[in-house]
C-alpha cells in the first residue's frame, strides 16, 4: 500500500471555520488545558482534572434517542484494533491509530486535513509483544506530540502535520520496548513514559522540551534513587520492569506531574511469604506499582505512594487517571489501581481512603483504608496455586479511564470480574532482553468462584466508594467511559455497542452498534455550535485477545486488525 506521508490541502470549509473562530481561538497552552474548555478535548484525560467529562449538553437525556452517525474515518492498518483517545481543538479532531498513524480531521465532516505515518523499524515491531497499538497524542504550543514503538517522541505542526522535531529517547532495539501511551503536555514540557513491566530495563519517564524536542530529564521508575535501590535485593533491579505507559496528569499548584508506574519483573515471584529477603526480587521494588509526583521542570521525585509493595500479581499502578476533586475544603486525588482497589489521596499522595470496585478479589484480604497497608497478602511459593487468583491478570479495572461528573458528583467506572488459575515457576533471572517477557508463571483465565465472568459499570461516590447504581455486562467492557453535561454516561462495550445511560439512574436511553468491539477512548466536542461524540472502535490486544477463546459468540469472528473512528451527532 502506498503511504500518504503528508496531505495538507486544507479544505475551504475548515479554513473558513478556523478563520471565523480565530477571534477566540488561542494556542493550546497549559492554562487552556487546565480550564478544560467547553467545546474541546485538549488532553488525554479531558483536562488536567482527569474527569473524562464534557460539559456540553446539547445531546441530553431528552434527545439522545435521536443520536446517529455523523461521519466515520478509517485509519487503515489497525493491527490490534484502535486503542487511542481522540483530541479536539477549535473544530479539528486529532487521533492516532496503530503504528502511530496520526490524523487531523475536520471535526464536523471528517475530511482529512493532514495525516502523518511515521516510518517505523518494522523488524523491531515484529519482535514486540505489546505492539503496535498507540493510545493517543498530546496537544500544546501549536504542536501534536506522538510516541512510537521504536522509542521516538515526535512533535508535529498542528496545522500541517509537518515534523518539527523527532527525538529518539530510548534504544528500543536493545530494550525491545517503546512508547504506546499518549504523552502529556504541560508548562512547556512533554512527558512520556516507556513500556516496561515485563522487560529488563528501568522503566524511564521522560520530560522533553516542547519547543526544541530536547530531553530535559529522565526518571527511572526502577531503583531511580538511592533509597529505591535498597529495595531490590541481590541486584534484582537488573531484572527491572516498571515504566509508566499511560499518561498521568499535571498539578499546577504543586508544579508536579502525577504518574502511575507499572509492575516489577518477573510478574509472579516464587518468594512465598518472605518476599523481603527471598525470591526473584527481594524487597519492595520501588518505584514500581506506585503513584509518583515529579517536579515538572527537573523530573525530581517529590512524593510517592507504593500502592502494592512488592507487587507479586501484576496489578500495577499504570492507570493514568488522577481525578482531582475538592470536597469540604479538602483537595483529593483519586487513582484506580489495576487490582480494582481505588486509592484516594491528598495532593501530596498521602492516603485518605481506599475502596474496591470488584466483587471478586483475593490477592489480599483487604487494604487498610486509613494507611493503604495491604492486609493478608497472598505471596506464592513455586508450584500450583490452589485457590484461583482474583482478579485475572487483565485486572479488576482496565487501563482505560472512568469518568467523574461534577454535576452528579458521581464517578462512573467499569469493574471486571474474572480470575485465573496459576502455577508459579522458579525461573533464572532475565537481565537482558531476550525472549521479550518475564512472567514467572503458567496461567489460564477462570470464572470467579461459584459464578460467571462479567463486567459492570458502577456509579459511585469517588471518595467513599458508596454505590448509587450498577449496570452489568456479560463480558467486561474494556473501553473508556465518558459522562456529559447532558446528564449522560457513555460506555463503548466489547461486543461493539455504544450505550448511553441516564447519569442519575443508570437507565439505558440509547445504544448503537459500531460493528466491532471497543477498547479505546470516547470524547465529546463542538463545532459551530453542534455537539459531536467521537469513539474509536477496533478490538485486539493483551486483554481482548482472551475474548474469542473465553466467550466465543461474536468474538469468534471479530477482527483484531481493523478499526474505525465513529462520530455521532443529533439527526
Amino acid at each position, binding site marked *: 500500500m*502506498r*503511504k500518504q*506521508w*503528508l496531505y495538507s490541502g486544507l479544505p475551504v470549509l475548515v479554513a473558513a471555520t478556523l478563520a471565523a473562530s480565530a477571534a477566540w481561538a488561542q494556542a493550546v497552552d497549559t492554562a487552556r488545558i487546565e480550564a478544560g474548555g467547553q467545546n474541546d478535548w485538549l488532553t488525554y484525560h479531558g483536562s488536567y482534572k482527569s474527569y473524562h467529562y464534557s460539559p456540553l449538553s446539547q445531546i441530553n437525556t431528552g434527545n439522545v434517542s435521536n443520536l446517529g452517525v455523523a461521519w466515520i474515518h478509517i485509519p487503515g492498518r489497525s*493491527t*490490534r484494533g484502535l486503542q487511542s483517545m481522540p483530541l479536539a481543538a477549535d473544530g479539528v479532531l486529532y487521533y492516532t491509530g496503530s503504528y502511530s498513524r496520526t490524523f487531523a480531521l475536520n471535526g464536523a465532516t471528517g475530511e482529512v486535513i493532514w495525516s502523518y*505515518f*511515521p*516510518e517505523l*523499524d*518494522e*523488524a*523491531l515491531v*515484529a*519482535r*514486540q*509483544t505489546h*505492539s*503496535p497499538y498507540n493510545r493517543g497524542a498530546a496537544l500544546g504550543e501549536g504542536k501534536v506530540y506522538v510516541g512510537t514503538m521504536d522509542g521516538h517522541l*515526535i512533535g508535529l505542526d498542528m496545522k500541517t502535520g509537518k*515534523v518539527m522535531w*523527532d527525538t529518539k529517547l530510548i534504544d528500543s*532495539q*536493545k530494550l*525491545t520496548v517503546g512508547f504506546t501511551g499518549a504523552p502529556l503536555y504541560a508548562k512547556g514540557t512533554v512527558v512520556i513514559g516507556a513500556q516496561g513491566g515485563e522487560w529488563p530495563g528501568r522503566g524511564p519517564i521522560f520530560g522533553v522540551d516542547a519547543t526544541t524536542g530536547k530531553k530535559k530529564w529522565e526518571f527511572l521508575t526502577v531503583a531511580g534513587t538511592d533509597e529505591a535501590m535498597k529495595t531490590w535485593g541481590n541486584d534484582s533491579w537488573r531484572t527491572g520492569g516498571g515504566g509508566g505507559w499511560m499518561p498521568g496528569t499535571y498539578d499546577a499548584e504543586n508544579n508536579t506531574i502525577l504518574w502511575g508506574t507499572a509492575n516489577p519483573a*518477573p510478574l509472579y515471584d516464587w518468594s512465598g511469604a518472605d518476599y523481603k529477603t527471598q525470591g526473584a526480587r527481594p524487597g519492595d521494588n520501588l518505584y514500581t506499582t506506585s503513584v509518583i509526583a515529579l517536579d515538572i521542570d527537573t523530573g525530581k521525585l517529590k512524593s510517592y505512594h507504593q500502592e502494592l509493595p512488592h507487587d507479586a500479581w501484576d496489578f500495577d499502578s499504570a492507570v493514568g487517571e488522577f481525578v482531582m476533586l475538592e470536597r469540604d475544603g479538602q483537595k483529593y486525588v483519586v487513582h484506580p489501581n489495576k487490582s480494582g482497589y481505588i486509592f484516594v489521596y491528598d495532593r501530596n499522595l498521602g492516603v485518605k481512603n481506599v475502596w474496591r470496585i470488584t466483587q471478586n478479589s483475593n490477592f489480599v484480604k483487604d487494604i487498610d483504608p486509613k494507611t493503604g497497608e495491604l492486609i493478608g497478602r497472598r505471596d506464592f511459593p513455586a508450584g*500450583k496455586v490452589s485457590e484461583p487468583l482474583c482478579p485475572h491478570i487483565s485486572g479488576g479495572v482496565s487501563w482505560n479511564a472512568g469518568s467523574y461528573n461534577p454535576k452528579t458528583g458521581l464517578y462512573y467506572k467499569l469493574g471486571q470480574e474474572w480470575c485465573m*488459575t496459576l*502455577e508459579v*515457576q522458579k*525461573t*533464572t533471572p*532475565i537481565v*537482558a*532482553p*531476550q*525472549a*521479550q*517477557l*518475564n*512472567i*514467572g*508463571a*503458567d*496461567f*489460564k*483465565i477462570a470464572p470467579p468462584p461459584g459464578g460467571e465472568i462479567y463486567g459492570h459499570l458502577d456509579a459511585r461516590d469517588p471518595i467513599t466508594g458508596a454505590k448509587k447504581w450498577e449496570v452489568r455486562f456479560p463480558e467486561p467492557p474494556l473501553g473508556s467511559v465518558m459522562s456529559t453535561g447532558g446528564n449522560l454516561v457513555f460506555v463503548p462495550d466489547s461486543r461493539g455497542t455504544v450505550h448511553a445511560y441516564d447519569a442519575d439512574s443508570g437507565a439505558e436511553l440509547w445504544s448503537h452498534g459500531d460493528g466491532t468491539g471497543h477498547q479505546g477512548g470516547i470524547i465529546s466536542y463542538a463545532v459551530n455550535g453542534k455537539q459531536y461524540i467521537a469513539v474509536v472502535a477496533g478490538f*485486539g490486544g*493483551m486483554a481482548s*485477545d*482472551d475474548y474469542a*477463546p473465553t466467550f466465543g459468540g461474536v468474538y469468534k469472528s471479530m477482527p*483484531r*486488525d481493523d478499526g474505525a473512528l465513529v462520530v455521532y451527532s443529533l439527526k
Partner: protein
Amino acid sequence: MTLLPPCRSEADEPRRELDFRQVGLAGMRLARTITTLSTPTLAVLLTISALPSRAQQPPPSAPDSEQLDVGQLFATTCGWCHSAGGRAAGKGPQLMDTKRDDDFLRIRIKNGKEGAMPAFGAVFNDAQIDEIIKYIRALKPSEG
C-alpha cells in the same frame, strides 16, 4: 520439503521506490547527515534505510550452544498466550496435540504472525527452535 522459505529475507520485500515521502523520517534523518555524498551512494543508503532489515541489527544475545529450558521459556514468555504451559488455548491456540507439522511450527516461531505473535527468529537459533518443537510434541495434560 519446506513449503515456505525458512525465514523472511530481504529479497522477499517488495521493491520500494526511492521517494522521500515513502522513505519518511528515518531516511530524512539520514539524509540530513549525508548531503555531501554522491547521488548513487545516497540512493543506496536510503534504499537500505527503507527496508525493515534484520541484517542491520545484531540479534540479541542467545548463546548458540546453550540448552534452552523450554518449560521456563513458557513460564516467562510463551505462556501469556499459550495458556498452562501450552496445554490450553488462551490468546493463542493450544499447542498440546497440535496437528500442525514441524515446518509450520518452525516458521511461525521464526516469523510470528502480525498482530498476534511476535517473531522470534532473531532470538532463537534453529537448534533452540527444535527444542521448543520437541517440548510442544511432548506436552501431556498436567496432573491434578
